[in-house]
């Protein structure tokens, strides 16, 4: 019961924060903070209470007992829909990231919100609850439910607390994700119904649907439905256009959540659902997906360099980074998959931090235009140093998380598709350009003496420090994270009955 409890804690905390607004404007953020810390404690307790070694076992995801934590309650037996939750190492990693970034988001919005702070914190917590649900749900119907549910509070975060062009951005975000979600719903129903016609009743359970024999054409269409929904969220080129708008217009905490966590749900969906459910279709589709990944890396980097709005720059850099994830996933071998997972974590941390810096700049300077900045280092050295750290993390400096991720992805990919790997490697160079450009435009150069700007305070440095430690840990000693993800990835890799394609299989067995 601890898994639904985790979601319920966040939901209830949100409601409580909303109510707390009646008492005072300060109380909601304390409630929110307490809720997330409570949820983290619960997650820690869940991880500790697991039977020893259960996370390390190479698991077969089709068997309920092989899930370290598994729960199934009847919900709508008419359609074989159950409240089915499961947690393994991968979920654990992503949940930890989610809650950690939840803390950061609350910290980053500590003084930013004047209007209805209670409802703001409530929406923040409800988004977190939706994301946690996505990472825990094993029933496809339930997964879809959480997938859609995290949108609504996010929509409100952007639409109510966003910046000048928020209506457009919020609407675009919602329409893109909701419309692609409908395709996924169709694909889910299609899959479940074909599963039913194969015998043994309708079921939306991931465990039952994995490894289903499907008519190739049908599998192809269903795979496309999933793929579109996930790559809109990821986002992959050319479905990324909602992302710069949404990130730019969202309040800081919203950007942190969007970049740090919501994008990861797309990657998680591809990894957990799209590829394992349709291995053959995915294998034939892999070249297309990988070219989209490469295109995303280069195009995102190019556009990032062209931006004058610092939030937009970071947003496009996300497109570029998530291209690596897409590449890593569709290379579908152990090395590249590991890389994709680490990239998810590293990107979540570094981008969230950069958005926090951008948000802090906007709060202090009331502009996001980098042409109006420059030389800020003199006024805010702590902020400058933190920015430099995360810019370096973002461009993939060895010793930080991003480097490990990109190296693993490229190494894995090289074994499969050397040309794609070569093209993607260009992204490393372009990343340097836009990342340093960001630093140069804002913090370096001649300072404007007339400008007064407060430096980062204790609260902000604490948040930054937390992320720095995490990134350093990922960069210097990624083994614990890899150990957590490895058995899951092995399980997923093997459960796809036939490896995607002959060359991939050869590469896959030699990590």
């Amino acid at each position: 019961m601890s898994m639904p409890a985790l979601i319920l804690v966040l939901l209830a905390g949100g409601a409580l924060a909303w109510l707390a607004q009646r008492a005072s404007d300060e109380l909601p953020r304390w409630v929110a903070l307490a809720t997330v810390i409570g949820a983290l404690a619960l997650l820690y307790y869940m991880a500790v209470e697991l039977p020893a070694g259960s996370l390390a076992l190479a698991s077969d995801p089709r068997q309920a007992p092989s899930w370290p934590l598994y729960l199934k309650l009847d919900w709508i037996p008419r359609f074989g829909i159950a409240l089915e939750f499961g947690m393994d190492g991968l979920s654990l990693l992503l949940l930890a990231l989610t809650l950690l970034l939840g803390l950061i988001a609350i910290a980053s919005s500590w003084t930013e919100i004047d209007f209805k702070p209670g409802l703001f914190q409530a929406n923040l917590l409800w988004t977190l609850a939706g994301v946690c649900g996505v990472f825990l749900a094993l029933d496809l119907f339930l997964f879809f439910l959480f997938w859609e549910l995290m949108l609504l509070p996010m929509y409100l975060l952007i639409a109510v607390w966003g910046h000048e062009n928020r209506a457009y951005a919020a609407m675009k975000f919602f329409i893109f994700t909701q419309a692609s979600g409908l395709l996924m719903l169709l694909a889910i129903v299609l899959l479940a119904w074909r599963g039913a016609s194969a015998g043994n009743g309708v079921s939306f359970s991931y465990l039952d649907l994995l490894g289903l024999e499907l008519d190739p054409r049908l599998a192809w269409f269903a795979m496309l439905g999933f793929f579109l929904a996930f790559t809109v969220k990821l986002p992959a080129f050319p479905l990324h256009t909602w992302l710069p708008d949404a990130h730019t217009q969202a309040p800081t905490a919203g950007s942190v959540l969007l970049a740090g966590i919501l994008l990861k749900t797309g990657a998680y969906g591809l990894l957990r659902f799209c590829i394992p459910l349709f291995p053959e279709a995915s294998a034939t589709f892999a070249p297309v997906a990988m070219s989209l990944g490469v295109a995303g890396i280069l195009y995102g980097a190019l556009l990032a360099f062209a931006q004058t709005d610092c939030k937009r720059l970071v947003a496009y850099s996300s497109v570029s980074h998530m291209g690596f994830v897409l590449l890593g996933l569709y290379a579908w071998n152990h090395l590249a998959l590991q890389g994709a997972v680490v990239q998810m974590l590293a990107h979540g941390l570094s981008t969230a931090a950069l958005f926090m810096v951008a948000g802090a700049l906007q709060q202090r300077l009331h502009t996001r235009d980098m042409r109006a900045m420059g030389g800020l280092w003199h006024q805010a050295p702590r902020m400058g140093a933190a920015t430099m750290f995360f810019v370096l993390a973002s461009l993939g400096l060895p010793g930080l998380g991003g480097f490990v991720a990109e190296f693993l992805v490229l190494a894995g990919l090289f074994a499969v598709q050397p040309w794609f790997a070569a093209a993607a490697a260009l992204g490393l160079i372009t990343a340097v350009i836009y990342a340093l450009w960001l630093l140069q435009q804002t913090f370096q150069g001649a300072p404007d003496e007339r400008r007064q700007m407060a430096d980062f305070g204790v609260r902000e440095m604490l948040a930054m420090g937390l992320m720095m430690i995490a990134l350093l840990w990922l960069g210097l000693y990624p083994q614990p994270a890899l150990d957590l993800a490895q058995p899951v990835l092995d399980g997923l890799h093997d459960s796809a009955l036939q490896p995607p394609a002959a060359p991939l299989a050869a590469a896959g067995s030699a990590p």
Partner: protein
Amino acid sequence: MNAADFQALLPLLVLSGGAVLLMLQIAFVRGVNRSAALATLTLVLAALSCASAVEQAPRQVTPLLVMDAFALLFCAVFCLAAAVTVLLSGDYISYHGDEPEEYFLLLVLSTLGACVLVSANHVASLVLGLELLSVSLYALIAYPNKSILPLEAAIKYLVLSGTASATTLFGFALLYAATGTLAFDALGEQLTATATGRPMLLLAGAMVFAGLGFKFSLVPFHLWTPDVYHGAPAPVTGFLASVSKAAVFLVLLRLFLDADLFRYRILVELTGLIAILSMLAGNLLALLQTNIKRMLAYSSIAHMGYLLLVFMVCIERDNRGLAVEAAAYYLIAYIATIIAAFGLLTLVSARQVEREDVQLQHVSGLFWRQPLLACLLLVALLSLVGVPLTAGFIAKFYLVVAAVDGSNWVLLGALIVGSAIGIYYYMRVIYYMSRKPEQQVSQAAPADGLAVRVLSGALIVIILLLGTVPQPLMAYIRSIL
């Protein structure tokens, strides 16, 4: 007629008796609150009596009416929807009232019409119910608010709906000429005996379908919808959009099922085409509206299009159970949602001068002024979008399942495209509601009070319950099919 027959007919009898009593009450002791109370009492009693009537179900009472559990379920739903309409419109009606007690009488009568329609399995009772429903609606549209817009709407509806009724009647006359019977199942038997594809039969089917299609505003016959929705008083619009449409749809479904008109592929494929047109045109036209009532009118066209998908699924005999189940669930969810949405518009515009004109600005910042009412509209709109945890999602899911079951890919595609377009105009309303206070224009306060709050809360809970715990209703619908 024996005791069992009367028991089975109880809901209809209660409604008729209530209507007569209401008339007497209006004749001797006028009073808005008294009439509202009596109407509510009648409707609630009628709904409760369905529980007693169901003991006798299924029972053919006279050759005209079949009181089966399915019909009784919808009788209860209609009565409850009408009761909610009565309660929500109290403030609206009494605020501008020019002896408005007849409003309640007409509402009870049209509910009776709807109940007759869902239990009709004979053309005569179909026409009877249809006319009872429509004629009360003409008056309802014009009656409570004597200004130019409602009057125009009523005349428009009167003329066009009259034409539609005439078309339907002509269609039935042709059917009668071809088969010599008017009972649905006998019609089916006779049709089996005659050769399919006779032009006269197809013409008859098309005319019946066109007339009834008009009543639930499918695309080539939809032109009246926005004007009438716009002009009619908000509570009446809600009733018109939910109960009246559901009743007509159900009787059409029953006609098609009992007489097995699904054998006429051309006819059914025509419905498929109309469904696609309705989904696309309804959603596209709704994009252009800034008046919420007009927007909901177009969106209701689209929703009827989604629902019509069921007809295509029914072609295969094996899929019919699921299709009818989906339609029933969809209708109940839709009625709850629409009653909530228009109930809110009623409350918002209750004390406004130009009451039939609810623009987007009128709900601007509603979240911060009236959180409960805003939540009601929010939940209703999300249900119309089909966001999980609301009734609308399960309903749409049901339809998707039915369509996948029947392999209707084109219709599914239209459903997806239509829903995707729909997101924009629903979310726009939500955006307006969430605008910050400094941007809002000053306007009349919406209706308020304990009853309104309780009802709004109850509607929210119903929509959410239908979305989160659908199993009991699903199981019940399945058990009575």
